[in-house]
């Protein structure tokens, strides 16, 4: 590709122009979030509105923590997302292993069923989910959210892990088995270390999905101290006023950790996503 660049300088200009516009468009909402979070409540509806705050209210970013139990919301989000990730991976690894290393009847059906399970969005099943959680005594309980998030991310976890496993040659494990390793042993000692990048990608991916989940938490959790951050945001959307500045300040705090996690796996992200399909 390097030589193509030399051929036409205009392509370069166009490329930079495109990239510039792209970045502006993507960053614009974040710019709005940030500047609005630093405004006073009155300024948001004032007559002479400005792009940047007239007075930077850095205190908003501090006050927000005392305005509502934000820390508690964060903790709940971490518990739900962390727990769901753990369960999704622990169930997903054996399934993905079977799907990538074994031949058995119904393998195609199972893969189809995994994809099918993605068709049922939580919002569509809300009534059924509530009933189930009630029968299990898990409404208003973080464990319920953990199990649900793990289940709704199961398909993705299997998909990603299977892709990773398929991209690793089974020869090493066979060698280990000949050396007397059990199947479980070869999985743990040989395959998992090699698949570590893919596993980390899956971990983070499921974590992010669970972190961002909204509808189930909204319906199932009613006690304030059990709300995850996505639902907790509503506290600033009260009966009598919307506190945009606090809402956006909290949004920023809720978004930053996810973006950092995403950047950690950015390199592996795409590779993991498609290898399942390529080798499928």
């Amino acid at each position: 590709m390097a030589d193509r660049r030399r051929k036409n300088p205009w392509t370069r200009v166009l490329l930079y122009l495109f990239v510039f516009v792209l970045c502006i468009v993507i960053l614009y909402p974040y710019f709005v979030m940030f500047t609005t979070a630093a405004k006073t409540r009155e300024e948001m509806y004032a007559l002479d509105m400005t792009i940047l705050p007239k007075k930077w209210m850095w205190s908003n970013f501090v006050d927000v923590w005392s305005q509502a139990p934000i820390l508690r919301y964060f903790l709940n989000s971490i518990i739900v997302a962390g727990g769901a990730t753990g369960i999704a991976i622990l169930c997903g690894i054996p399934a993905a292993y079977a799907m990538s290393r074994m031949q058995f009847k119904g393998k195609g059906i199972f893969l189809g069923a995994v994809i099918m399970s993605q068709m049922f969005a939580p919002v569509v099943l809300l009534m059924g989910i509530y009933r189930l959680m009630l029968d299990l005594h898990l409404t208003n309980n973080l464990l319920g959210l953990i199990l649900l998030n793990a289940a709704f991310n199961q398909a993705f976890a299997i998909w990603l892990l299977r892709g990773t496993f398929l991209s690793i040659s089974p020869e090493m494990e066979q060698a280990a088995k000949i050396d007397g390793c059990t199947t479980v042993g070869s999985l743990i000692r040989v395959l998992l270390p090699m698949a570590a990048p893919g596993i980390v990608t899956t971990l983070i991916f499921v974590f992010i999905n669970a972190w961002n989940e909204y509808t189930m938490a909204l319906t199932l959790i009613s006690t304030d101290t059990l709300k995850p951050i996505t639902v907790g945001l509503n506290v600033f959307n009260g009966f009598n006023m919307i506190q945009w500045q606090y809402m956006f300040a909290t949004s920023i705090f809720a978004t930053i950790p996810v973006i950092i996690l995403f950047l950690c796996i950015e390199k592996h992200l795409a590779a993991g996503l498609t290898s399942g399909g390529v080798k499928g």
Partner: protein
Amino acid sequence: MKKFLAMLLALAMVFALAACGGSSAPAAEAPAAEEPAAEEPAADKLPLNVIISQYGNNTQAWWDGVFVPGFETAHPDIDLTVEIVSWNDLYTVVSNRITNENVPDILNIDTFADYVADDLLMPAEEYTSAELKAKIIPSFWNANELDGTVWALPILASVRSLFYNVDILEAAGVEVPTTWDEVKTACAAIQAYDPDITPWSLDVSSDEGQAAFGYYTWNNGGGFVDDNGDWALNSAANVEALNFIKEMVDAGYCFADPMNATRYPQQDAFNAGSLAMMIGPCNMISASSEVNYGVAPMPTNGGNSPVAFGVCDRLMAFKNDSAPDQAARTAAISAFFDYFYDQEVYSEYMVYEGFLPVTSDASAYLPEHADQFNKCEANGGTPGENDYFATWCGMLADCDFYPASRAEWIDVKQGVIDAEQQVLEGADAQAVLDELQSAIAG
């Protein structure tokens, strides 16, 4: 790599454990569930599960910090759980719980007819003590009657009236409008004075579009029902009112987006001085607002006299056939209400949220003693104002309210919002209202 897996497993366990530990509040596990709630920590305490709607940013703080500790000190035998649910989610939460036979003991919401139709509610007489009944203002008590039985208690009220920005009206050289024609003249003058100022406010969003229907139809001699109490949604006065709404929007006198902009940002705009006039609730002026405002009666049309607009939400108690001791449960519910409507407790909550009391003792008490209590933090945290309650409590007596006790009310509420939106989108008001009337009244 065993370590890796072991760590993963340990991590998952920690999270699962933390989750169980964190969910120690068994709030939703009401005794209505099939199995007896064996894990209830204090078996000898009677659980009482209450849902309160979120009236402001600090609603949670008052109930958790003031009411529940106070109540449990007074009634150590009752295990009170109060859940605060935002109005955005209230209907979702409640209907999910009813479908799954997991109703709260006491619910705070705006309507009750649907629950009566399914025989879910206890008649109010069963749990209202004689003293409490005596002090609830009779018009509010009667407003919760359906088929000859009272099914709910009023929790609080608010009054809507016309708020105007004195400085803007003065600068534009107009008087406070009293008729619709004067409203249009005033709006035109304000727009000419400063095009950046929005003259008039309108909210026909699904959030509260039924309120706008009330403001304009009632003050044009129409309304939801006729003099006999029958639904009369397609009256000539109502058609005229919807056309007036459309005229105001088309002339550019309102915010660009009345079908989606709820009342709250419009209140903020009024408080910030970028909106000149607004029909809004008594507690809409924020603590930090520097606007020089006045309050006037609703503008009317066709020589009708102004009708003030009252809003009242309700508290109701659900039946629970699986409760082991019905008498004890009813007693606990009574205890809750007696404690809540206690003059001091109730007055404190009214000042805190800025709403108006529905009991006679608090109505008499607050105009002189509101300054003994503090408003919530979002309202400034300052002492209450006696004048505020003196003015607005006086207006409360002459207000009209939604016909919210009727079985068809939810459909009517959705229907008039839909009608308003259709008219703004260009449909014919008469045709839209005729269709609604025939859908509701058959």
